[in-house]
């Protein structure tokens, strides 16, 4: 039997019972469609989380204060990041003594109520230094960023994020030269940062940058910093950079046991890896739920094929009487099952794509239909056709032609 004949026979057999074939295919369509859509949601979430982590800078190592412990060996802990142990001197030491550190940006950040004429908001105020934009990947839209001069002279100047600008001055206004009041201290606006997109862990567009020294003196009232961002010279040196910072700070803080360190160091890649683990788990969860519907669809195919074999017993008998061999019959019915799932897979991919598009359009969730998920869905549908079509095909092939011809 020639391949083209096989396809013609199969196709016409499917078309004879359009409604039933269509309904059976629907199970596969929904299965494949939901797998594609679910995986695309997972992939999209992964992509947007990763890009938002990348947007805070590249090759970044973050140094933060550790646990605050009571005096002596008190076991009471106030939680990570609560201690005030890091100072600008630590940051300077890192910059001077570690070659792998390309740039170091200490910062002190806290939320304050901020007012202008008639408007006010509560936002994150970050006291930092001139290299901050380079380290944390901040772009300036209007005006300029804080200069070293501003830091050393304790200037009361502020650079605001676009969302803060919108809240305090109105959308798309130019606030350069205006005055804002943070914690009852007046600051002059000298710049507006570019929008980074308001997604991720914290909205990086709703922020006010002021000189570190000014923030310490007039807002915080102490000399501590909340985070030191260190940019490594390249991606490969991040691990050794992290180790060197750790050693330096242990030494500076007179701590001999590394497990009692009063600071913690986070590597950007660790954050990405952690986030990826979460989104991968999430993707697998979604895909498995969708996979169940695919199996149900496969059982539907098997059910239909068994019905078909019973219904077409006489036809099978006739085919055998005119010379069809077992192999011819089993291949024909197997092809029928595979063709059903193949069509189902094809329509399912279109449906999945469409669903992913709808989710993106109306739910605002990022989705990404990857080629690999399409290839996977396609092969899964073909495998389902073979697996669930095999038994009915064998049953058809093993029919005795005499019995089959007599079958009423």
């Amino acid at each position, binding site marked *: 039997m020639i391949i083209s004949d096989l396809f013609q026979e199969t196709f016409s057999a499917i078309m004879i019972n359009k409604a039933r074939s269509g309904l059976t295919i629907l199970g596969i369509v929904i299965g494949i469609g939901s797998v594609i859509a679910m995986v695309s949601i997972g992939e999209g979430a992964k992509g947007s989380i990763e890009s938002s982590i990348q947007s805070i800078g590249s090759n970044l190592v973050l140094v933060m204060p550790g646990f605050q412990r009571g005096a002596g060996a008190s076991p009471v802990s106030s939680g990570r990041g609560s201690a005030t142990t890091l100072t600008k001197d630590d940051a300077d030491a890192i910059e001077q003594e570690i070659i792998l550190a390309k740039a170091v940006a200490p910062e002190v950040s806290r939320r304050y109520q901020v007012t202008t004429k008639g408007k006010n908001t509560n936002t994150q105020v970050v006291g930092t230094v001139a290299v901050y934009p380079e380290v944390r990947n901040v772009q300036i839209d209007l005006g300029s960023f804080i200069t070293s001069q501003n830091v050393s002279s304790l200037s009361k100047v502020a650079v605001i994020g676009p969302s803060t600008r919108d809240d305090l001055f109105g959308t798309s206004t130019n606030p350069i030269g205006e005055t804002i009041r943070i914690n009852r201290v007046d600051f002059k606006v000298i710049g507006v940062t570019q929008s980074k997109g308001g997604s991720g862990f914290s909205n990086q567009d709703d922020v006010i940058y002021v000189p570190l020294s000014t923030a310490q003196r007039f807002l915080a009232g102490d000399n501590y910093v909340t985070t030191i961002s260190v940019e490594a010279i390249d991606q490969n040196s991040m691990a050794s950079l992290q180790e060197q910072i750790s050693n330096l700070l242990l030494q500076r803080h007179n701590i001999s046991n590394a497990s009692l360190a009063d600071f913690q160091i986070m590597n950007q890649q660790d954050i990405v890896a952690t986030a990826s683990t979460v989104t991968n788990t999430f993707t697998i969860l979604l895909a498995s739920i969708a996979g169940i519907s695919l199996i149900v669809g496969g059982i539907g195919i098997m059910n239909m094929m068994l019905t078909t074999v019973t219904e077409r017993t006489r036809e099978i008998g006739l085919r*055998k009487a005119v*010379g*069809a061999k077992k192999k011819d019959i089993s291949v024909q019915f197997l092809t029928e099952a595979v063709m059903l799932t193949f069509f189902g897979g094809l329509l399912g991919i279109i449906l999945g794509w469409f669903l992913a598009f709808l989710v993106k359009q109306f739910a605002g969730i990022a989705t990404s239909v990857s080629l690999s998920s399409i290839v996977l869905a396609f092969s899964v549908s073909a495998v389902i056709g073979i697996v669930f079509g095999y038994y009915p095909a064998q049953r058809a092939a093993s029919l005795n032609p*005499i019995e089959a011809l007599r079958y009423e």
Partner: protein
Amino acid sequence: MIECKNITKIYKSGTVETFALNDVSLKINDGEFVAIMGPSGSGKSTLMHILGALDNPTSGKYFLDGNDVSTLSDEELADIRMNKIGFVFQSYNLLPRTTVLRNVVLPLMYAGVPREEREKQARVSLQNAGLDEEHFNHLSNQLSGGQMQRVAIARALVNNPSLILADEPTGNLDTKTGEIVLSTFQTLNEKKHSTIVIITHEPYVAEHTDRIIYIRDGAIIKDEKNTKKIILNHI
């Protein structure tokens, strides 16, 4: 040429053995038009299955064109059916909702004959079976009973078989249409010298053939030339 030597077929149901055929020997020459007659349960269907290479005898030999067919495997029997046998069934057994031409090319499809060649052969054999050309592209279920049986005959003819086996070919037809089918067989036998064996329980049908083999309880009780052959006007 068909030759059966001492064919016995036993069906076993538990411990009970039923002799469907008991020591049957017969010989049919090329170009003969034969009826095998007998009441139901006489073993004529079993004989047809063996003659048609659908089944093996329990014992005895069956030679088709000089080759021993009685000991072949299922797959080898399928080859014999494909190349040497044409079947016509009581209930036509056409593929539903499929065109006449595609029904007729079916045996050639399994034989691996190229598409154009088999369509040509199918047209020839449909003409030989007496079906008008206008019906060639009709769906099988749009035809009348007589037309369907002619399609079935064309399908049986299409691979130029050594033997055409017809199992109660007029059983589902009224007398008039039945005669059309019988005259088709007569024409084929006369003009194409096809070897035709009709299995029937109706004496009237058997009387259209040249030779009648009577079978009862699994054995041949009479095998004689039909002297009262009814010759139909070719339609």
